């Protein structure tokens, strides 16, 4: 597949924005300005970029607590995401969601779900509605390797296959659950690809650190979905640069393994490729500078934003805007 250069630049731009955004999130967590927890997708940006850039408006992404990259790259405003991490009034969910629940429905970022596996059937349901309504939308669901062992995975992929739903299940296999290696808890090599046949699906493995490879797999899966040929289950091999969450140093991982993967940084790889394809250093520098400025601005805006209005505590449990359980 010959990927046009503007698409490639869009992917690079997306990866760089995500990288800087999450590096800042990490710093802010260490400074105590992001509270609670945060799960970074540093190192996994190519998966988010490949899928997001291949997506159309109206398509729907479902992701996990490790969902900053995906939400940002679907077009959610960075300052509102940063505000949500910091629990400020400018947060995309008014501070009520937090780091694990970033959502921007207006952009098709259908939510970040923090109970492992739960969003797979939800994503399938959105695809089912697309099918029934004949809308041509595709629903994409991102999740981790460890998620393939929970029941909801099995139920969702099966029904999606049987009903030919336009949904793409994307397993970001970063080799670890929280602190335990996936290889310790499965009896096959590939947590997703080696299960695909159980649902009559093809086992697809893609280099998740190569944005082009991801993009190509994404395009093929979108086409399949829109043609009415049903779901895909794609396993993207990748790695998280940091620990699982918060201040986890990730010490359960062998040093050599970490080094190997750091050498395969998806952004470095892609920068090299773009240069080799004739994109100038200046263009790339400009993308990077703009991204950093955007992150700085988002940080400032969120630092300056007040905490959420206390009134929002009791809003939006119900569609009437309130939370009353009595008449």
């Amino acid at each position, binding site marked *: 597949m010959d990927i046009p250069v503007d698409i490639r630049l869009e992917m690079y731009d997306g990866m760089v924005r995500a990288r800087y955004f999450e590096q800042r999130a990490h710093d802010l967590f260490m400074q105590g300005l992001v509270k609670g927890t945060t799960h970074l997708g540093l190192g996994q940006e190519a998966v988010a970029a490949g899928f997001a850039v291949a997506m159309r408006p109206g398509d729907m992404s479902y992701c996990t607590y490790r969902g900053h990259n995906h939400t940002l790259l679907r077009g959610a405003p960075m300052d509102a995401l940063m505000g949500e991490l910091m629990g400020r009034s400018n947060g995309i969910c008014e501070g009520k969601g937090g780091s694990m629940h970033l959502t921007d429905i207006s952009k098709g970022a259908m939510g970040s779900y923090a109970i492992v596996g739960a969003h797979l059937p939800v994503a399938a349901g959105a695809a089912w509605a697309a099918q029934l309504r004949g809308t041509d939308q595709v629903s994409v669901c991102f999740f981790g390797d460890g998620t393939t062992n929970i*029941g909801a995975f099995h139920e*969702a992929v099966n029904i999606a296959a049987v009903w030919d739903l336009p949904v793409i299940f994307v397993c970001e296999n970063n080799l670890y659950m929280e602190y335990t290696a996936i290889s310790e808890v499965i009896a096959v090599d590939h947590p997703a690809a080696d299960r695909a046949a159980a649902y009559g699906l093809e086992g697809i493995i893609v280099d998740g650190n190569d944005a082009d490879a991801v993009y190509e797999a994404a395009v093929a899966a979108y086409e399949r979905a829109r043609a009415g040929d049903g779901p895909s289950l794609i396993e993207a091999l990748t790695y998280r640069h940091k620990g699982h969450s918060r201040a986890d140093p990730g010490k359960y991982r062998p040093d050599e393994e970490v080094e190997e993967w750091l050498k395969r940084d998806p952004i470095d790889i892609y920068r090299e490729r773009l240069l080799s394809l004739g994109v100038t250093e200046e263009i790339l520098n400009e993308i990077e500078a703009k991204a950093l400025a955007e992150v700085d601005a988002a940080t400032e805006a969120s630092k300056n934003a007040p905490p959420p209005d206390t009134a929002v505590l009791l809003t939006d449990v119900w569609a009437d805007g309130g939370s009353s359980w009595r008449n």
Partner: protein
Amino acid sequence: MAELSYRDAVARGLAQEMERDERVVLIGEDVAKAGGVFKTTVGLYERFGPRRVRDTPISEEAITGMIMGAAMNGLRPVGELMFSDFLATCWDIVTNQIAKTRYMTGGQVELPLVIRTANGGGARFGGQHSQSLENWAMAVPGLKVVAPATPADVIGLMAAAIRDPDPVIVFEHKGLFANKDEVPDGEIVDTLGTARVLRRGDDVTIVALAAMVHTALDAARILGGLGISAEVIDLRSLVPLDTTTLLDSVAKTTRLATVEENPRLVGWGAEISSLVAEEAFWDLDGPIVRITTPHIPLPAAGELEDLAIPSVEQVVDAVKAMSG
């Protein structure tokens, strides 16, 4: 006006709404071709076709997750869980996802969906197919909960649930499916969060739900013969809760008993009692009495099950004792 069974009222309520709004769809195990294991969805598959009425695998997380996703993308889906006991197999989707998503997204997500399920005991099905679990749902912020006691209420509350923009769980009582009653012709649409005073009385308020409404009414008739005038309230909806009707009644009668099929601990009766003990304490002339199933799983044998679930006699005795 025509006579209709509670069972047929389910299908009529669903058909009424499916006719009106093509976004209303129904999925569940054996709901389509077979018309449901309790025959509550008979005719819908034939009338609305395989796209709108569809059988699923035995995958309750998929059923509930799919209706959530579909509600996020323009449908108004109804999912059937064959028995309310199976709520436990998809409780994460129901409580952590469906119930919380609007709030956690700052109001971005609307989830106009309905979960219907056969609830309650009396059918000798044993501990895993007989539970009354409306208290579980009541405990979860973000879920609306109704439990109709009559055919007309089945239709009206089903319609209200389907039209409501929030997730609603409709508990259909297995023990009432065969009950018949007069039902008005034409469209019936009721209002969530409204209790109904089914019998006026002055001495004591008896609050009940679903099958227990009939038990309470029977008891009230007997109590009437004993000179005790009982007011019977059918709550109909646990969330939203019609506290006005409840508190008004207690203010008048000064006595309260609740009759629930939930096992004792933290059944919905506890919430009603605590509400009155807090907000209407000075209206009360005596202890609030809760009549519940004991805190046990339900046994299968008929003689044991009948002993477990609150009976007319038990209600009469308890109310006599508190009025004595």
